[in-house]
């Protein structure tokens, strides 16, 4: 601690340069925190713990729809309480605003998703109105929608039988969530599957994915395996997983997220390494006469080496702590605002530990070469300006 004042003062020798270096480190660790949290989330194995609902999708990809005829077969399986289906509609509002629109059966939706809260009258209207649509409270509030109004929604996947992509629905209900977590997820819309199946050009035989409500959450893994086993070697092999894992897969469709994240992090850290390493080396070069003075006063080679190395460590530690705290705030915000996808993403202890290792590695990589150079400074030559 007695060297703190010396180290701290040396660190801020050139304030602008120190701030810029620190900002680049903060940015690097902010990215590290964000990307690594996502990487840990996407790299985690299948998790059925506490799953009361499963999602059955095509084994190939969830973009490959499963046929509706599978519904009674799944419904008849032991351990299955109820089944509904979700067909991604690909809705676009206005010019180019993406909506989360799914075609579903109103009665089955109500049974399989008791978390959605809506009046009986609105549920009945949804069931009885072929062109009916219900919207989540947040989705409706964001666009000022009122029950009774017509919603022109384009589909970027399904044309109507007349070839038009423009669909028109009647808003018959606005649903909310039963608790804070579900209320935060009221960003989607449901259209009546019956109307969708009749009116779209591709036919009525497909269902998208199936949502399976279980009799006993303890049996989630067994039921999932049973469903997949049942359709094994059929034209429609399935992949059954918890809702959480399915949501992960929604993003994983863009590629191997873990690999992408790792490549981005390597690129970021390599860039920061070069920038910070160069800055540290330059800072030491400028201070060689001062380091020689320290040695003249009796500071040993080892002490001078340690002082320069600790300087790099302090700089990297500040960057890492501030960057990781910002990442934590950002991840918390993301989890609160898009809980259906990022609800369980966290900058947890694993991510903090990885950041700690990255910080140590970075500090050694950028600090060790100039520190060793500082330790090797020859007093007589340095004082003579050689």
């Amino acid at each position: 601690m007695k060297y703190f004042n010396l180290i701290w003062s040396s660190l801020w020798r050139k304030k602008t340069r120190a701030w810029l270096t620190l900002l680049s480190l903060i940015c690097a660790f902010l990215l590290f925190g964000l990307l690594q949290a996502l990487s840990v989330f996407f790299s985690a194995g299948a998790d059925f713990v506490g799953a009361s609902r499963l999602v059955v999708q095509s084994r190939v990809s969830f973009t490959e729809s499963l046929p509706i005829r599978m519904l009674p077969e799944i419904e008849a399986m032991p351990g299955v309480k109820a089944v509904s289906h979700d067909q991604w509609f690909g809705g676009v509002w206005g010019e180019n605003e993406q909506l989360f629109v799914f075609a579903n059966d109103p009665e089955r939706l109500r049974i399989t998703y008791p978390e959605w809260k809506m009046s009986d009258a609105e549920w009945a209207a949804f069931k009885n109105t072929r062109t009916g649509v219900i919207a989540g409270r947040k989705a409706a509030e964001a666009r000022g929608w009122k029950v009774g109004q017509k919603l022109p929604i384009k589909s970027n996947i399904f044309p109507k039988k007349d070839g038009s992509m423009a669909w028109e629905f009647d808003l018959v209900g606005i649903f909310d969530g039963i608790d804070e977590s579900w209320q935060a997820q009221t960003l989607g819309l449901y259209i009546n599957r019956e109307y969708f199946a009749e009116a779209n050009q591709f036919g009525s035989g497909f269902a998208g994915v199936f949502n399976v409500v279980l009799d006993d959450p303890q049996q989630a893994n067994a039921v999932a395996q049973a469903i997949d086993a049942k359709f094994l070697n059929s034209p429609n092999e399935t992949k059954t997983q918890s809702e959480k894992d399915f949501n992960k897969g929604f993003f994983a469709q863009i590629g191997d997220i873990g690999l992408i994240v790792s490549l981005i992090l390597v690129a970021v850290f390599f860039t920061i390494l070069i920038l910070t390493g160069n800055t540290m080396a330059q800072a030491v070069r400028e201070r060689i006469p001062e380091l020689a003075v320290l040695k003249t006063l009796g500071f040993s080679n080892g002490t001078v080496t340690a002082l320069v190395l600790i300087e790099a460590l302090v700089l990297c530690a500040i960057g890492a702590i501030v960057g990781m705290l910002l990442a934590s705030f950002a991840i918390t915000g993301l989890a609160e605002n898009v809980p259906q996808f990022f609800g369980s993403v966290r900058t947890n202890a694993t991510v903090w530990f990885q950041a700690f290792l990255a910080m140590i590695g970075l500090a050694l990589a950028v600090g060790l070469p100039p520190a060793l150079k500082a330790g090797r400074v020859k007093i007589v030559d340095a004082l003579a300006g050689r």
Partner: protein
Amino acid sequence: MTDTLISVKNVVKHYTRGKQRVEVLHNLSLEIPKGDFVALMGPSGSGKTTLLNLIGGLDQPTSGEITIGGKRIDGMNSGQLANWRASNVGFVFQFYNLLPVLTAERNVELPLLLTKMGGSERLKRANVALEIVGLKDRARHKPKELSGGQEQRVAIARALVSDPELLVCDEPTGDLDRKTADEILTLLQRLNREYGKTIVMVTHDPKAAEYAKRTVHLDKGTLQAQAA
């Protein structure tokens, strides 16, 4: 008989610059008693600074013996020399060599960081040293806020703070005007007379040498006359 503090015996020093071997000191011997104030004079390249660096333990002789305060320093490794310098020698340079990022007080404190002294004791001693050189009121100023003479006083305070017996000064007034140079030399003289510090000072300036008790002349790496 006066106690000898510095004993230089048959010292040879040569440097290798590229493929060329340059012999700077040739079989030089010198004795300096405790409490002496010696001015080392001579033309550029005569070996003054090299001799000063050897006496201060900043460099090692190619051959010969250097004994300071009864201790042979010519055979010490760099770690041993660093420890020895920390407690036995104070250095004053031509261009002050203060750390620009530290205040005067913190600059003076630097040698004490190598001791086991506590923080408050270190700062107390640093302030006493600054008081001796007449700069206590500038303790919180950084070097760029001080004049050249004040910077050199801070450097002298730094050299004094660990209470070494020996002060080595390399052209301490070389960067100062006459009036300020006289003030610095008077201060060094006071340190020699009142505090008993042994001072070895390299200078080109005959007026500066007048403040010393005696002058040693070097030319081409050998000792010339010694004037009292």
